[in-house]
């Protein structure tokens, strides 16, 4: 396999000016991540700052209704309310140990921006967050949180003014400031070594889930499910289970409104191979190779590409990738609130919705772990708007 590739997918399709910092990062990963100093400090931060291990919650009420046993890996209980903090604390510590004083990041829903700002504040790093102007409006609560933590949030007015344009802006800024700045990439996509780096920091999710489930039941789950935008929470959950052949693995993409031809965020199901943001992956694109606007009711899934390892897992047949539309995600959002007293992020609601929608194909009494990647406080305004628009 070529360096930096998962099968045919991945690579480093970046301007030459970005190759030196990517090579520097790869070298730092090799040296620093394995060191006892890094591991000791990272483990301590995960426990004492992030709040790990997060709970594995059995949903008794919904399980009765659905006919299978629904378990949730509760990344919503991690500090800042989403799995993103695992990655940003890791990358912030790496930044510090690389001797760089500053981090920049892109964000869609704002969760990665908040998590980066948080980690930067903790480790005394300067921080700048790029966010599409559309996302700034729909996630203003998170913008305020970032600013409170001392980060500068920069609205990106170009292109579709969403996550993909925030990534473009952050990459441009990284080219110019690479000597002092680390780009804290937020998902398991982008050029090598980011898909590996982010997976490294997120794989704690699957490791904990497997251990917790074994302790509770003495066996392996029948299935694990996670939502996929760029795919970091999913790859974090899946990595530990990929070698467990008995475990079915399902990634869930956002189908948008679900109507044929609608804007969506489902490049694995509805995209074609191409190169964007440094990696060969599956993309939403025109025949001419121009990137198409994506859509999901959840800003965090609203991305026209996906991490290359997911594409490889899809191509190899190891992981099944399904789709859930906005209305199904809203339904799951409500069901989890009403039945279990848990407010999920709209991103995570897609994963829960897939399990609900496919309940008839899951054997009675089977154990299904859904990764609840984040909490939904940030999505309350979107939820209210949706109800107003759809009269429900």
């Amino acid at each position, binding site marked *: 396999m070529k360096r930096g590739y998962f099968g045919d997918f991945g690579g*480093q399709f*970046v301007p030459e000016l970005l190759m030196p910092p990517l090579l520097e990062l790869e070298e730092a990963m090799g040296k620093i991540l394995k060191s006892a100093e890094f591991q000791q400090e990272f483990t301590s931060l995960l426990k004492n700052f992030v709040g790990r291990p997060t709970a594995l919650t059995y949903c008794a009420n919904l399980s009765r209704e659905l006919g299978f046993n629904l378990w949730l890996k509760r990344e919503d209980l991690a500090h800042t309310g989403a799995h993103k903090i695992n990655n940003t604390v890791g990358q912030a510590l790496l930044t510090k140990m690389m001797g760089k004083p500053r981090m920049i990041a892109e964000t869609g829903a704002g969760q990665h921006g908040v998590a980066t700002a948080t980690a930067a504040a903790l480790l005394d790093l300067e921080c700048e967050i790029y966010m599409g102007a559309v996302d700034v409006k729909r996630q203003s609560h998170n913008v305020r949180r970032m600013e409170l933590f001392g980060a500068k949030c920069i609205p990106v007015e170009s292109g579709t003014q969403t996550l993909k344009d925030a990534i473009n802006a952050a990459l*441009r800024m990284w080219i110019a400031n690479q000597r002092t700045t680390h780009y804290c990439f937020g998902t398991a996509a982008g050029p090598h070594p980011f898909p590996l780096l982010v997976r490294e920091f997120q794989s704690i999710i699957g490791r904990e889930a497997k251990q917790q489930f074994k302790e509770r039941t003495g066996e392996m789950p029948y299935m694990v499910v996670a939502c996929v935008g760029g795919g970091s929470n999913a790859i974090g959950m899946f990595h530990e289970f990929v070698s467990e052949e008995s475990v079915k693995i399902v990634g869930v993409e956002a189908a948008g409104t679900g109507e044929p031809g609608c804007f969506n965020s489902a490049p694995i199901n509805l995209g074609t191979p191409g190169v964007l943001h440094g990696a060969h992956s599956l993309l939403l694109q025109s025949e001419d190779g121009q990137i198409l606007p994506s859509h999901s009711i959840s800003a965090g899934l609203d991305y026209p590409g996906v991490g290359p390892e997911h594409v490889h897992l899809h191509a190899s047949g190891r992981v099944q990738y399904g789709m859930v539309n906005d209305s199904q995600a809203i339904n799951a959002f409500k069901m989890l609130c009403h039945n279990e007293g848990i407010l999920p992020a709209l991103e995570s609601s897609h994963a829960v919705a897939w399990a609900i929608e496919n309940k008839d194909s899951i054997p009675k009494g089977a154990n299904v772990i859904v990764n609840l990647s984040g909490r939904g406080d940030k999505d309350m305004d979107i939820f209210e708007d949706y109800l107003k628009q759809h009269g429900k």
Partner: protein
Amino acid sequence: MIITTLADKINDANAKGRTALIPFLPGGYPDKEKFWKEILELDANGADIIEIGMPFSDPVADGPVVEAASLKCLDAGVNLKWILEGLAKVRSQINAGIVLMGYYNPVLQYGLEKFAKDANSAGVNGLIIADLPYEEGVEFRDLLAKNEVALVPLVGLNTSPERMKLYADGGNGFCYFVSVLGTTGDRDSLPEEIKVGLKQAKEIFNIPVALGFGLKHPSQLIQLEGLVDAAVFGSALIRHLGDGKSCAEFMKVWK
């Protein structure tokens, strides 16, 4: 295979005691009707090589001026087919070398082999792909070379001599040296360290060295005498045309 057309164009200009001129315009700018007229005007007014941008929706190496111009062209329906077919029609009237510059994905979707053949048929001499570093470009470079199209190496202030040597071994046409750690767009001054980088490039590459990104006025090149064989300018030209002025007027300052 050594492809000499672009190097010859630059060497010819240098032999006449001047820096070769490489203006850049996104395909279809300022609009689809005027574009080919502007290209002919650039050619008639001293361009040694003309760079035609292949617009892309997500141009990470470009600054705001080139990005906005490219998006305008995409909105007008410009694609690679339009550029290659249009070029094929006017190529015989153009004396300058022709280089296409853009991003990998549109070319990948067009089909690498088909692109190499069609580019050759349309009279393209070289290709610059902003997001195709050495490691990812080896096979495509060979495919292009078979079709007598040079894959122009793009290096910069932070490119180590080791990496420059990689590019130099397979590089053709000319070496495109990026003047700043940043995106395209004219700037008032160039970084001092540029001299060290250019000296290195001149030593390592056995093809001419062109300087691009950040150039606004020929006076910027005075301090770099002997280090730069060709100058590339895009944003300043785009802005000039955007103001309704002519290519001839713009080129007058550089000639």
